[in-house]
């Protein structure tokens, strides 16, 4: 029970790292809280659902499609909303109101379009993808069922989600630390005013970060039918709250701290489910309060953010 909870928590936590990654990137660069983050995740989930329902498209290619579509949406959306917001006296506080409104609009429009009922994608769809990849490396056909990890059996969708989340974290790392745009992004994250003074096109850098943030949310949404039971237009709010807890645990403004926050959350959640199941859903809030009391800058704090 202990080992299973630990490994399950690791996989579940990696998924929540992916969910929080985009939210933290946007906060780190723009110092605004995107309360519609969970709603973009929900839209990504519905995109995957409809791609599967209409074209029988496997969720794996849907990850790339969702990322590209929502990253593209993010660029114009940034220019429409954020520069005006940043000119305000208190952009952080106003961002709460603005993105809360956006969240409500997205939820309402999606409800009108798709109804209120739960929607799902069959779990074996990700199993097929995992089996195909495993078969490629093993050189023989692999079953599409659950996957064995360190003697424990997990749904293939969990493993796929964990791998995809790991890849996404790696790509964000490469972007931030190995590309020119990434260097500029980190410069903006470190000090926006100094970045402007040195001639960095802050809006271009921020728009790209905003696009990546939405793209990551949508990509995480593709896994939502498998990791969160089912999808509904109303799921966004709850996801945003949990993602916010994850990034506060890791460190606000430090995208890579999100990984640590996600894993801490995932493992704690699974242990709570195993040993105090009735209280499991209180966990994000308890961790949030504990971190704010003990280490307000998050587990990784500012030191890493400035590295």
């Amino acid at each position, binding site marked *: 029970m202990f080992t299973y909870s630990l490994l399950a928590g690791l996989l579940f936590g990696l998924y929540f790292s992916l969910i929080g990654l985009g939210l933290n990137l946007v906060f780190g660069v723009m110092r605004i809280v995107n309360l519609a983050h969970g709603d973009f995740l929900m839209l990504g989930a519905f995109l995957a659902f409809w791609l599967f329902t209409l074209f029988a498209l496997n969720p794996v290619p849907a990850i790339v499609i969702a990322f590209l579509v929502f990253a593209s949406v993010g660029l114009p959306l940034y220019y429409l909303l954020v520069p005006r917001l940043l000119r305000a006296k208190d952009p952080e506080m106003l961002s709460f109101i603005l993105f809360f409104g956006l969240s409500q609009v997205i939820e309402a429009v999606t409800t009108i379009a798709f109804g209120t009922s*739960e929607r*799902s994608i069959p*779990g074996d769809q990700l199993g097929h993808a995992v089996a195909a990849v495993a078969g490629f490396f093993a050189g023989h056909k692999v079953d599409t069922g659950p996957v064995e990890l360190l003697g424990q059996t997990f749904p293939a*969708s969990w493993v796929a989600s964990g791998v995809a989340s790991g890849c996404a974290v790696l790509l964000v790392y490469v972007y931030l630390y190995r590309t020119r745009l990434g260097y500029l992004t980190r410069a903006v994250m470190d000090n926006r005013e100094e970045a402007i003074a040195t001639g960095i096109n802050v809006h271009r850098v921020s728009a790209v970060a905003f696009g990546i943030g939405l793209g990551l949310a949508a990509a995480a949404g593709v896994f939502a039918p498998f990791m969160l*039971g089912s999808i509904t237009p109303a799921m966004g709010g709850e996801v945003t709250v949990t993602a916010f807890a994850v990034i506060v645990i890791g460190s606000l403004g430090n995208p890579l701290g999100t990984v640590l926050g996600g894993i801490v959350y995932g493992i704690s959640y699974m242990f709570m489910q195993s040993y105090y*199941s009735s209280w499991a859903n209180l966990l994000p809030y308890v961790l949030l309060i504990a971190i704010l009391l003990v280490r307000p800058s998050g587990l990784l704090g500012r030191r890493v953010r400035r590295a």
Partner: protein
Amino acid sequence: MTRLAILTALMASLTTAAVQAADAPAEIKLGTLYASSGRFASISMPVHYGLKLWIDQKNADGGVYVKAFNKKIPLKLTAYDDQSNTATAATLYNQLITQDKVDILIADSGSVLTSVAVPIARDHKMFLVDQTGTGANFFTPDNPYIALIADPVSSIWPKPLADFLTHDGPGLGIKRVAMLYATNDFTGTQANAVRKFIKESNSGVELVFDEGVPTETSNYTVLLNNIRASNPDAVLHLGYASNDIAFLHNVQDSGIKFKFLFCIYPGLETELLEKNVGAKGLDYVFTYMPASQIAYQTNFGMSLQEFSAAWHKKYADTHVEFGFNSVAGYTTGLVLEKALANASSLDQLELRKAVFSLSGNLKTLDGTFELDPNGAQIGEFTPLGQFVAGADDHPKLVTVWPHDLANGKPIYPRP
């Protein structure tokens, strides 16, 4: 002299009728809530649509007959969206009573969103028409302002399930039962009832796993592993529709084969569950047989077949699935129609009296309407069913308990 007396009586009755008609309101104001979004939307919207179907039918016919005014009066529905939020629901229930001054207060679907209405209605001395809020603690001897209309009280739902486990179970090899439930009034009460029934049976059946989880739970993989570790012969999952969808998904994805698996909503909202977990996910799952699955003899209102046809005609273009909750909303309308035809005024306790007068006499597509003295519904009944492979790729639900209603044999262990 006799002629004069008859004439006087006739004049008096005509005058009374004229006064009654003159005092009659232009419309009967019904107030309710629904959840168009959030966790309870999928059980709230079908109930709301079922109620609206009845209202539209009655209004198309000139209204509903109200004995208190001896005439047909149109119905006006005031409905607000609580978005599955209990705090919002509490505010809106107050608004319906104090601002809109509705004549009849109807709760939203399900125990969670009804729970906040119970004390509010009681404080305002408004009779609460509780559609499907089945929590047993809502019904107490000191609260006359509530009656459960379209759903049996939670404490009796699992009786057939528990009876099956304790009577036929040991013979089939069922001795160890695992129970996982969502900690809300609806399923929490059922879990208590299961515990009580099993304990009182002295059948040798024991609960080897008994855990509650928050209603918001959407992932059961670790819990399933823990249940498997307890080596149960039967697994009972008591949750709402979204819980059952996530649970059955996780069972499939984990590759775990439980010998006996019971969930509530596959029977209640079969269309919704089949869309989400597929026919394969429902294979050999045990569930309740609600009114949407059994064609009861009626003495009032449409039959199940007629209602199903009316529903699919009216709501063909919506995203709301037909199921037990649709039947429940329509049943609420039928009970109100009968009550208004019996009540001598729109006074709240008079409405209560009229509703209680139907107990044991009214038979709708939802079964026999019967209330206990506290207003809990005890007439409608939930036999135990099991999904088996159907001829057209859709799973077929057969009744397996009680024996006198059974049209199939239980398949155990689950293949």
